[in-house]
């Protein structure tokens, strides 16, 4: 997608097509000849894994929709019908339900990789913003999908999340009733959630195209966090990265299959095998694991509107990372203090997730408030200040240098320091 294609059609048919629609050249320059930094590690394979997961979710989702009934009196039993009667229905449903969790595992690794290696920094800000849009669409899609089986967690999860909008001053209740299409979560809500759950993955696919386009303009970031300077710094996408992505994907699929075949309900809740009853709330309702850190933030603020604002700003703040991070050094490998702060941030997010899964009482409330405070302090105080005060380690002269060490003699090492000097502002 960047620069003229070097593709040369080999057959007459390919030449015929290429002069009419240059799609073979586009594929060739984007996924075959595309130059990737040669030092990419396995954390860079999650983009490919995520692309696979989107396709897998759409394929299993479309087939499940052939057997599912989005009607409040039939939805719950139609899911059991899929499990018991439909050929391979159990497999499709477990692949789809666990696929959502795998999708989020992969996206969280992908996001944290971007945060560690500074992949959001110039010139990749738009790429990062498109990623945040995809993440938000994924959260909306996952939430609506969880409502469809119409169990107790489905109905009450839907009630709690849609009620977040009732915190909006003045128009909150009107907005919530509009979302429900009634006075409570009921058939109208289920029906529209099904429609939107079917729509949103295709919107994600559209934004993914933009995300890849925005990636292919500057190319991938890399563990050294310096841009490729010569052809020695890069390798063609095929076969070097197709095989690397492929190997990583296969390992990921083994992990995924272990969930599907051995612990398919590990990430589900027993309460969701009880049909939704709008008159009885389960004793302990929790959202899906991938929302837990944000749920913990919501509950930490002892005020309804305040909690909702804190939760949404916790997500939206991530979009501002390219401007909150004042350091021009991308990779945390060369930022000794930021590297420590990064791991505290990861720990904070994991602990918030644990707090979100616990009942809102006693020490959990206080711990949740401290962890929430740290989340915002990291993004709003630590990250901007570190860039101003931290002294980074010297950057390698080139990606090839970073990979091959300083085997090119001391002159190369000297020039490394010289060229990295203008960038040493932390």
């Amino acid at each position, binding site marked *: 997608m960047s620069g003229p294609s070097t593709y040369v059609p080999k057959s007459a048919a390919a030449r015929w097509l290429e002069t009419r629609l240059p799609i073979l050249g586009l594929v060739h320059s984007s996924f075959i000849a595309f130059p990737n930094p040669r030092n990419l590690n396995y954390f860079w394979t999650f983009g490919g894994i995520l692309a696979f997961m989107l396709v897998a979710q759409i394929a299993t989702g479309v087939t499940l929709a052939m057997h599912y009934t989005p009607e409040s009196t039939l939805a719950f039993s139609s899911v059991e019908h899929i499990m018991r009667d439909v050929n391979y229905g159990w497999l499709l449903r477990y692949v789809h339900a666990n696929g959502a969790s795998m999708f989020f595992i992969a996206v969280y690794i992908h996001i944290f990789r971007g945060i560690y290696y500074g992949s959001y920094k110039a010139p990749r800000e738009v790429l990062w913003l498109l990623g945040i849009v995809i993440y938000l669409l994924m959260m909306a899609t996952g939430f609506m999908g969880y409502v469809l089986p119409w169990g107790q967690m489905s109905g009450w999860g839907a009630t709690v999340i849609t009620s977040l909008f009732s915190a909006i001053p003045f128009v909150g209740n009107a907005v919530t009733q509009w*979302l429900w299409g*009634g006075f409570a979560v009921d058939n109208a809500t289920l029906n529209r959630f099904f429609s939107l759950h079917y729509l949103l993955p295709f919107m994600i696919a559209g934004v993914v195209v933009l995300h890849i386009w925005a990636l292919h303009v500057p190319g991938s970031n890399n563990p050294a966090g310096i841009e490729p300077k010569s052809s020695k710094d890069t390798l063609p996408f095929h076969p070097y990265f197709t095989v690397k992505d492929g190997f990583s994907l296969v390992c990921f699929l083994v992990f995924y299959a272990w969930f599907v075949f051995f612990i398919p309900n590990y990430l589900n809740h027993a309460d969701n095998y009880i049909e939704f009853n709008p*008159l009885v709330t389960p004793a302990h309702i929790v959202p899906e694991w991938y929302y837990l850190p944000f749920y913990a933030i919501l509950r930490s603020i002892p005020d309804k509107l305040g909690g909702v604002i804190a939760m949404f700003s916790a997500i939206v703040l991530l979009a501002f990372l390219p401007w909150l991070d004042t350091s021009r050094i991308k990779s945390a490998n060369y930022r000794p203090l930021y590297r420590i702060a990064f791991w505290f941030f990861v720990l904070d997010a994991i602990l918030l997730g644990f707090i979100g899964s616990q009942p809102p009482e006693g020490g959990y409330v206080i711990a949740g408030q401290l962890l929430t405070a740290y989340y915002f302090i990291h993004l709003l105080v630590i990250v901007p200040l570190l860039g101003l005060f931290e002294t980074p380690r010297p950057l390698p002269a080139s990606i090839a240098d970073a990979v091959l060490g300083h085997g090119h003699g001391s002159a190369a090492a000297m020039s490394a320091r010289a060229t990295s000097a203008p960038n040493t502002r932390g």
Partner: protein
Amino acid sequence: MAEIILDDPNRRDFLYIATGAVGAVLVGGAVWPLINQMEPDASTLAQATTEVDIGGIAEGQIVTIKWQGKPVFVRHRTAKEIADARAAPMSALKDPATDESRAQKPEWLIVVGICTHLGCVPLGHQGPFEGWFCPCHGSVYDTAGRIRQGPAPKNLVLPPYKYVSDTKVQIG
């Protein structure tokens, strides 16, 4: 070709503005039905009232009935529960309301059974005030359904209702 200077509105300006204006009206006219169709429909609005026979509800008992798809608690309060609710000082209330303003007849408290925080159904006879306790996020209501502790901002909502006879209440 001679240069033509057109200071006055000409035919092209007229077409530009007229097309834009009609286009804006058409877009608005197309978008509104697409948004408005999500509002509660006529069949949902038709379930507006529910009649409850309260004759069989014993003192101290809470009965949950369904009105407009939502739970409504009909609580036959004991003398102690009424006294507790009336003894609460206004200064201790987050959303101040007298007990008298919340029950047409003191022994019958009728409230929408939805926590004003995020919509869970609170559990009766639980929490420090033995009114209701919401298991989702820990809101505590007293025996008048008023919010006393926790994140909920408002008291349990009072539905519109009237006594059609001594033992029949119409909600809605």
